[in-house]
């Protein structure tokens, strides 16, 4: 490896906390965190209703959520583009090519995945534990609280998985964000752009950050695994 290689240049950028790297990483993490948060706010109550509810058509709803997981990201990008575009029903918000468009699209992408993983976590709770809460005279609110507490490691794993999924998304983010430098350029879109321009230093630096992020998420998931599997007494 020579001093002029892109890898050394990328490591140098990371070491010196290059402003361009920080800006892109900050935007990416911020948008994906907001999107995952929004997916959790909607997905967790939905998962509790599906996981704890005893309503007609519950299995159908669960299957529908799983089906939405299969929807290609680029299709969600198209839908958001059409909705936020000038002639679209939400065009008045003027969010297209802003970070908000990325947040909305990523939230929609994360929602079915997060919900399905939350449902799985809630349904893995020993039903006897929930009966124990119910027989304390508790209503649905307390039963849900008990379920969330017991399923916490599984829920957190679902949240991290959804985050990892959206932070690594490229095509959809490019479509609705526009890849505008300093405004909507995320890690993945920056890597694509810089690579096409032959500017490998920034691309490699961002790639290392993404790789590190992915590793970190996997380590946390690994740490959560035995706890998620453990049944409380």
């Amino acid at each position, binding site marked *: 490896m020579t001093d002029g290689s892109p890898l050394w240049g990328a490591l140098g950028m990371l070491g010196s906390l290059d402003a361009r790297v920080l800006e892109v990483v900050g935007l990416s993490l911020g948008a994906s965190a907001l999107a995952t948060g929004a997916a959790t706010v909607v997905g967790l109550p939905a998962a509790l209703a599906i996981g704890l509810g005893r309503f007609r058509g519950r299995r159908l709803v669960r299957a529908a959520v799983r089906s939405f997981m299969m929807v290609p990201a680029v299709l969600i990008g198209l839908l958001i583009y059409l909705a936020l575009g000038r002639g679209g029903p939400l065009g008045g918000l003027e969010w297209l090519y802003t970070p908000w468009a990325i947040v909305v699209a990523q939230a929609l992408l994360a929602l079915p995945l997060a919900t399905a993983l939350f449902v799985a976590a809630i349904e893995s709770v020993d039903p*006897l534990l929930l*009966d124990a809460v119910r027989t*304390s*005279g*508790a209503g649905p609110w*307390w039963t849900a609280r008990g379920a969330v507490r017991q399923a916490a490691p599984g829920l957190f794993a679902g949240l991290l998985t959804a985050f990892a999924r959206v932070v690594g998304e490229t095509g959809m983010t490019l479509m609705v964000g526009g890849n505008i430098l300093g405004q909507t350029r995320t890690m993945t879109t920056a890597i694509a752009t810089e690579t096409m321009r032959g500017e490998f230093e920034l691309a490699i630096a961002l790639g290392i950050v993404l790789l590190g992020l992915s590793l970190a998420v996997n380590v946390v998931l690994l740490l959560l695994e035995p706890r998620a599997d453990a049944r*409380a*007494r």
Partner: protein
Amino acid sequence: MRVRVEGLAREAGRPPRRILDGIDLELPGPGVHAVIGPNGSGKTTLLRALALLDPPDEGAIHFDGACVAHAARARPARGARRRVTMVFDRPALLRGTVRWNLEFALRAAGAGREERAARVGALAEPLALERILESRVDRISAGEARRATLARGLALRAELLLLDEPTANLDPLSAAVVEKAIAGLAEGRETTVVLATHDLGQARRLADRVHFLVGGRIAQDGEAAAVLDAPQSVALAEFVGMENLFRGTVEDRGEVQRFVAPGIDWAVIAERAGPSWAGLPARDVLISRGPVESSALNDVAGRIAAIDERGPTVVVELATKGVPELRLRAAVTRATLSGMGLATGQEVRFVFKAASVRLFQA
């Protein structure tokens, strides 16, 4: 609380199997009621229905005269669940410390901070929980977890407390602690306790009344001693471990009735003739080395085939001389065994009164 169950039926599984098949039950008020019965008889299902966790498929449940669960309704009456709590046959504690679990249940039940602390404090000593109150539930033993689960049930001070096998798999010390707590509750005379148990000794020690459940139906109920000492069905006789059970026919021979089966012709006291089961409790049988003159009408000769000294009493098994050879069991004390010098192979006689033979409809 007064509890009345009318024609309660529950089905489960695929294809549906009838677990409870028309239960009629009356719990007149505070006290301890034991529900006994073999595995699969429906004890847990009955308790879950009483806890209002599973709705009846048929029938209804009334608390103090008010209908709280009915086959026509999917949900129990509003507020009724707060009057009842169930302690399951295995620990069911949420992630957290023992104290957190107790407090969580009390918070869910609407108890204030001081009330919660007082109730948890009041149970720590009698259930030997002081040492583990701040321990995480995955760091305590199975016995401690069972006691913590019971503590949660007791802390709620529900009017109806349902205990499913509260001492199953507990060491004798933990079982004694749990039984003491239940006995304490019975003394208070404020709670209606329903105890599902396999342990007949426990039912005898703790329960005022016993309900024998078999095949999803109450086969016999009444005062504990009356039910356990005088089974009226062959199922209960088998369940309480009546040692000598035979199927045959009661014949009415004028002044005396006889129970007749291959190798058996015993004097019995019967209300009617016909096919019947006869049960002879081993403790009602006397062993004699030779013929005896007594009021007992039954005297069966044979030789000792086996002596089992493992239990609290010694069980002596007699191989009768009749054809076919039968095995009869008698229970004696260890002092009798050594005093009489009983040994395998000896010729002896088993003597018992006609009144000792319990007859059950076939």
